Structures are given as structure tokens and as C-alpha cells.
């Protein structure tokens, strides 16, 4: 069966496995999904990703691939329909740059804004705002990073939209507001409205509960 040759090891809360799900869905690739319990990792996961022991892992014809952005590039190279990366090498370089910027700069700042308190949180929120503003400039006034349709950077960064909405509710700080980041704000709205994107999202109420519990745990651990 076609599905047998592609397997995704993931976790329902992980934005990194969500990115891969989106890419597979966009290209209409059949695959077998394996939900990993991250507190009790399977021997299969440990065998497929001995270096990091993390999800997502994409297994194609028994060959394991790790690291979400690397998996996205692989998917794009093997399955040519609905390309994620542009054809022009300079545009490809820009896309890779922005995807890396999201992981290197936006994500750590957002994590810090979520997990810190007081002055540290204020600093993290400021940094998150600055980095998101920079990310907005990468849109270059387009509807999506990919142009009229979604591409590599949209899939790499789009999950931040959901995450920011939820964490914003929990920490009481709006990290992406329509006033200071109008283009980024409408990009997130448009991205999350796309049917295939919405279909892959984890149940939002369940996710909110999970993140609330996580937040409580983090703050408790920090104060002991």
C-alpha cells in the first residue's frame, strides 16, 4: 500500500510535527501516523532518531529523517506537486532564511514570554514583539510568504498564529495585535482559514487545557 512507505512519528501538541502534517497534506501524500508518548518514547523512535530522540521523524521506505525543516525540504524534493520552496535560488535562500529566523529568534522569545514572570517576562515580550515585527517585513507586503498561495515559510511559521492566540489568553498579553503588526496579523488569520491547515490542527480546547496546565507547572517549578 502506498501508505506503508511513509510513516510520521509525531505528537499531537507539537508544532514541529504539525508542520510536517501540513506539508504531507498539501501534497496529498498518504502516510501512516504514529502518536508518540513523549514521557515514554517508543523503541522505534529511539532507533529512528538516536541523536535527538525527538519527534517529528518521517520514515520513507524505511529511511528515517529528523528535524522538521529538513523533513520539509525532503518532502519538497521527493514529491514535486504543490511545491513548498520557490524555483528561483535567491527566493529559496530568502525562504530558508526566514524559516530559520522563526526557529532561532521568534520561538525562543515566545517561549520566554510564556514561561517567565515580572521583568524577565517584560523583556521577553519586548523581544518577541521586535522579532515578530522583523518577521512581518519578510512578508514583503504579500498575502502569504509563498505569494498568493502558501509555501515553505508559511508552513514553518504559521503555527505561531495559534500558539500566540492561546498563550496570549493565558499570560494576558497580546503578542500579535492588528495595530502594530497589521500584515502579520492578517497573514495569521488567512493562514488559519485555509481548510487543509485547519483540518490538521489539534482539538483547540484540548490544546488550551494542555497549555494552561503546562504554564502552571512551569511557574510552580520556577518559584520552588
Amino acid at each position, binding site marked *: 500500500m502506498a501508505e506503508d512507505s511513509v510513516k510520521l512519528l509525531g505528537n499531537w501538541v507539537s508544532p514541529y510535527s504539525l508542520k510536517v502534517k501540513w506539508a504531507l497534506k498539501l501534497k496529498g501524500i498518504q502516510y501512516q501516523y504514529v502518536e508518540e508518548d513523549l514521557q515514554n518514547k517508543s523503541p522505534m523512535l529511539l532507533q529512528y532518531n538516536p*541523536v535527538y530522540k525527538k519527534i517529528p521523524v518521517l520514515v*520513507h521506505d524505511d*529511511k528515517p*529523517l*529528523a*528535524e522538521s525543516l*529538513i*523533513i520539509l*525540504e*525532503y518532502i519538497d*524534493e*521527493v514529491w514535486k506537486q504543490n511545491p513548498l520552496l520557490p524555483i528561483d*535560488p*535567491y527566493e*529559496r*535562500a530568502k525562504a*530558508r*532564511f526566514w524559516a*530559520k*529566523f522563526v526557529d532561532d529568534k521568534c520561538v525562543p522569545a515566545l517561549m520566554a514570554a510564556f514561561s517567565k514572570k515580572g521583568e524577565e517576562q517584560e523583556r521577553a515580550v519586548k523581544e518577541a514583539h521586535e522579532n515578530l515585527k*522583523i518577521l512581518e517585513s519578510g512578508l514583503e507586503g504579500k498575502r502569504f510568504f509563498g505569494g498568493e498561495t502558501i509555501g515553505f515559510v508559511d508552513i514553518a511559521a504559521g503555527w505561531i498564529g495559534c500558539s500566540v492566540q492561546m498563550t496570549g489568553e493565558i499570560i494576558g498579553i497580546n503578542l500579535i495585535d492588528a495595530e502594530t503588526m497589521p500584515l502579520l496579523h492578517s497573514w495569521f488569520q488567512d493562514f488559519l482559514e485555509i481548510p487543509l491547515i485547519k483540518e490538521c490542527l489539534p482539538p483547540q480546547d484540548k490544546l488550551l487545557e494542555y497549555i494552561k496546565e503546562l504554564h502552571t507547572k512551569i511557574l510552580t517549578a520556577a518559584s520552588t
Partner: protein
Amino acid sequence: MSSSAMVTANQLIIMAELKLFRTSSSPFVLRVVWALDLKGIQYDNIFEDLSNKSSLLLQYNPIYKKVPVLVHNGKPLLESLVILEYIDEIWKQTPILPEDPSERATARFWAKFGDDKVLPSIWNAFIKQGKDQEEAIVTAQENLGCVERQLTGKKFFNGETIGLVDLAFGWLANLLSVFEEVCGVTLIDHEKFPLLLEWIQNFADAPIIKESWPPRDKLITRYQAFHEVYTSKEAPK
């Protein structure tokens, strides 16, 4: 115009189209230098003083304000691994990435592992002292162990020829022994890391690579200075 004058004029134009903002020995800069040189590409070197960055650099890389920046036909490329992929896509001779997608993914994985894990852990072992340093060395050696295993049966990470992962790890070949000498610890020995040590020699001896080799004495001076700064900040434990 005579034909030799035309050739020179064309070369000037070609050179003007490609500029590399760099320092002399940054690990991230050298990988780009090596990639360009391996492919026989002509370019202008623009050396930056990182304590006094040029307005051009800040204009081309306002987000990170770092080197390397490769400017091709006026368009800036940033982030060394992104630059390497761009170079490989534009100039097809002497490819640094394999053709097979899963081999490409593997190469990208190890290049990223080098930057995300190996380099920071070795830097940590370099700047820490006492018990912190002992722990940092253990972590660095674990990471290097993963790298060692990738060389099984191969001359270079890419096989018979130098590729992306070799260029990404190139800094190991010129800096590891410098770190060891400056802070007086041995990170890799012949017993546990025979393949890595052999790779270091093969890489350092490779034609073209060795022509852009940073002079060791300058590296020692430079990293001696870094070491003094960092270890005077940390209280020994």
C-alpha cells in the same frame, strides 16, 4: 579593445558581481570561502572589523549585523548554511550536496547538528573551568562521538570528495587543536576518535582548502585573548 583587455574587463565585472563580507578566520566565513574556491568562483573579499562594522554590512544584514554576507548581483545572502545551498544551486560544478534526497537530508542534518550541538558544546568546554568544564567536556565528547561514527568507511563526510558537512565542520580541523592548546585539555584522542583525527588531517591537506587556511599562530593569539576574557568572568568552582 584588445582581447586580453576585454578578458580583464569581463573578469572585473564578474568579480564586482560577487562580494563576500568576511573576517579572516570566522568558522562561518571560511565555509563560504571554501565553497566558492572549490567551485573556482571569482569574488571580491571585503574584510570587516567586527568592532567597527561598515555601513554596507549593516545595510546588507540589518537583522543579525554579522558576517558572512555574500552579495550576488547586489542581492545579499545571509546565514552561512543558507549561503552554501545557494552557491550549490547557482554554480553546478563540484557539487557540495549529493543528488539523492535522503542523502541531502542526512547532510543537512549533520551540518545543523554541528552548529546546534557540537560547536556550542566545544565552546562551553573552552570557556568553563573546574567542575563545569569537566561536565562540558563530557557533553562535547558525546557530540563528537556521534560525528566520529559518521566517518565510518569514508574519507570525508561526503565520501571521496568534500561536501556540505565537511565544509560545515571545517572549523574543527583548524580550531580544535587551538582550543586544546589554549585551555590545556584534550578533547579528542587517537583511541576514541581515530576517524575524526584522520579526517582533520585529510581536510587540512586538501588542495584549495589548505590555500585558505587561517595561520595557527594568529588563531592561538586570538583564542588566548578570548579565553582570558571568559575565564576572568567565571569564578573557578
